[in-house]
């Protein structure tokens, strides 16, 4: 199967990949404002997909001891401690301040210093504090770099518009790994192959919702047809803004973004990078035509250079 994904926004990735009469594209809307950091999603994913445990290591990164998405962590819950007011507690407080500079103290610091870093102290020393939690997952990009670059066709686009690795075809070339602009897919050290969230392809086939969404007690992870999710998310953001939570923003919901919109998108309360997400990801293959042009012209230059070397040698 040859799969390529287009680069125009608003495409139907399943149809692009040759699925006819396919079901609607599905995905996740993860509303981090209601996440309670229970990690049920992480555990449910591992249980359902028999993903190995990732080793026991106290990281000092707040309550996050699995660090990030990887071959053995397909759902990952981030924890960010910040000296910023609880949402809406002090409605107007932090909108004119430099959120990035503030957030830096809570999260950009290395784990070893994370707790100790003296932060810009609030007047009364304490109280201005919030704890963000967010469950991250493969974005199932409309234009998925991992899929584009995969040389074996192991990564493919399903009829649901999701992106899945076929373990029996993956040759462990590792190409998809640096290609993913979100740092999602990763190589499992023992077998060298690439692993990531399948959006529970096996469950979708049986009409079940993905294990992580099923386990989420607060509906922070919402699963469904992408169109509906995008509408719902839009409404939710508006509500939050109305309620004074000006920080609320959608991430990955825009079909015009660099990856053509994510199949799994998020409602965040801070800049994406605070959560370890790239602020403006672009599918690398968007620039591939230009790359090929430069490769061709460089090759020609090389040939020309060789010709010149012989011409020069003859002249001398």
């Amino acid at each position, binding site marked *: 199967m*040859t799969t*390529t994904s287009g680069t125009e926004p608003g495409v139907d990735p399943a149809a692009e990949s040759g699925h006819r009469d396919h079901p609607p594209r599905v995905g996740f809307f993860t509303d981090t*404002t209601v996440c309670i950091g229970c990690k049920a999603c992480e555990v449910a994913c591992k249980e359902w997909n028999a993903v190995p445990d990732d080793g026991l290591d106290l990281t000092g990164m707040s309550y996050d001891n699995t660090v*990030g998405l990887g071959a053995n962590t397909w759902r990952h819950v981030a924890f960010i401690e910040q000296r910023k007011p609880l*949402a809406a*507690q002090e*409605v107007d407080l932090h909108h004119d*301040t*430099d959120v*990035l*500079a503030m*957030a830096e103290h809570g*999260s*950009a610091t290395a784990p070893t210093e994370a707790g100790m870093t003296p932060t810009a102290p609030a007047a009364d020393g304490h109280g201005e504090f919030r704890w963000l939690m967010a469950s991250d997952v493969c974005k199932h990009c409309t234009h998925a*770099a991992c899929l*584009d*670059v*995969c*040389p*074996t*066709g192991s990564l493919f686009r399903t009829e649901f518009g999701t992106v899945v690795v076929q373990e029996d*075809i993956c*040759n462990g*070339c*590792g*190409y998809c790994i*640096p290609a*993913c*602009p979100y*740092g*999602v897919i*990763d190589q499992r050290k023992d077998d*060298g192959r690439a692993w990531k969230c399948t959006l529970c392809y096996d469950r979708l086939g049986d009409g079940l919702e993905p294990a992580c969404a099923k386990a989420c007690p607060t509906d922070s992870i919402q699963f469904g047809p992408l169109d509906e999710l995008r509408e719902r998310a839009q409404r939710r*953001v508006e*509500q939050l*803004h109305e*309620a*004074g*939570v000006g920080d609320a*923003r959608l991430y990955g919901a825009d079909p015009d973004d660099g990856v053509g919109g994510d199949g799994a998108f998020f409602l965040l309360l801070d*800049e994406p*990078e605070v959560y*370890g*997400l790239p*602020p*403006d990801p672009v599918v*690398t293959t968007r*620039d*591939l035509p230009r*790359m090929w042009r*430069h490769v061709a*012209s*460089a090759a020609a230059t*090389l040939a020309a*250079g*060789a*010709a010149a*070397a*012989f011409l020069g040698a003859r002249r*001398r």
Partner: protein
Amino acid sequence: MTTDPDSRPGREAVTGGTTAERGVGARGDGRRRKGRGEQPVVPDTEFTSYYGKPVLNGPVWKTPDVPAYLFLGGLAGGSSLLAAGSQITGRPRLATATKVGALGAISGSVVALVHDLGRPARFLNMLRVFKPTSPMNMGSWLLSVYGPLAGASAASAVTGLLPRAGAAATAGAALTGPGIAAYTAALVSDTAVPAWHDAHRELPYVFVGSGAVAAGGLGLLADPDGDAAPARGFALFGTGLEFAASRLMERRLGMVAEPYESGRSGALFRAGEVLSALGTAGAYAGRRSRVAGVLSGAALLAGSALTKWGVFEAGRVSAADPKYTVVPQRQRLRDRAAHETPST
């Protein structure tokens, strides 16, 4: 008991997020916020991340396998050009040496690739599809065309058998060889790794330049005095091209160029440049000395290898530090916002 689902008490309450003040009416003024419109202005040096952890999963390719693969591809491609030129201009010893060199290089590169993959059969998986969006896939096809041509060319030259077929193979290898030398730039650029992706314009030229340097070095090493002039010229061309392309690249990359300029990766990359320059200079200065020729050739080969290794390491470094991912993207957003604001 009634079973009217709409009969829940209190259902008229407005759905909202964190609404401490609702219902009390005392404090919340419900002032509208525009969300995205109010992006804070970020000072250039400020950046944030998740505990300093990388945003990307960096390349998992092994060293020296993959740097060697990049180097050997350049060497092979450049050598095939030298071979063809030598054949046309009647330099049989240089031709044979570069043909054999090309074959050796390409065989080495396949070995490096297979070692990285783990098993030979895994290479074949790549030929089950034809996929222009995957430089690795295209590279595999290219390799499977070029490899046999380079092999036939070398075999014919060494054995003296089937000279016409050998000539055709030599021509074919010279046609595809530049592709082999250049495509690896697309291979690394077609990733999210900042130091690679953002360099996708210049990297092909750096790579072919480096390939020319290597092939030139091989020519110098292999061939006795006199016949090596094209190799010298090729090395000079390569060094110049690589140098020019690198400068351009570093200028355009801005902070993302740091890994090419400093640290271990920067040192490797610089060492590659210096060795290439030294090798080229030595080749010209010691034109009549066999020893100087051998030394220069070795320097050129090493220079090319170090350049590729430097590029490889720079990619790793840029993926491992989130600032190379976040800052340029932030800048991009800011630039875009600056462009958009007046028009709306």
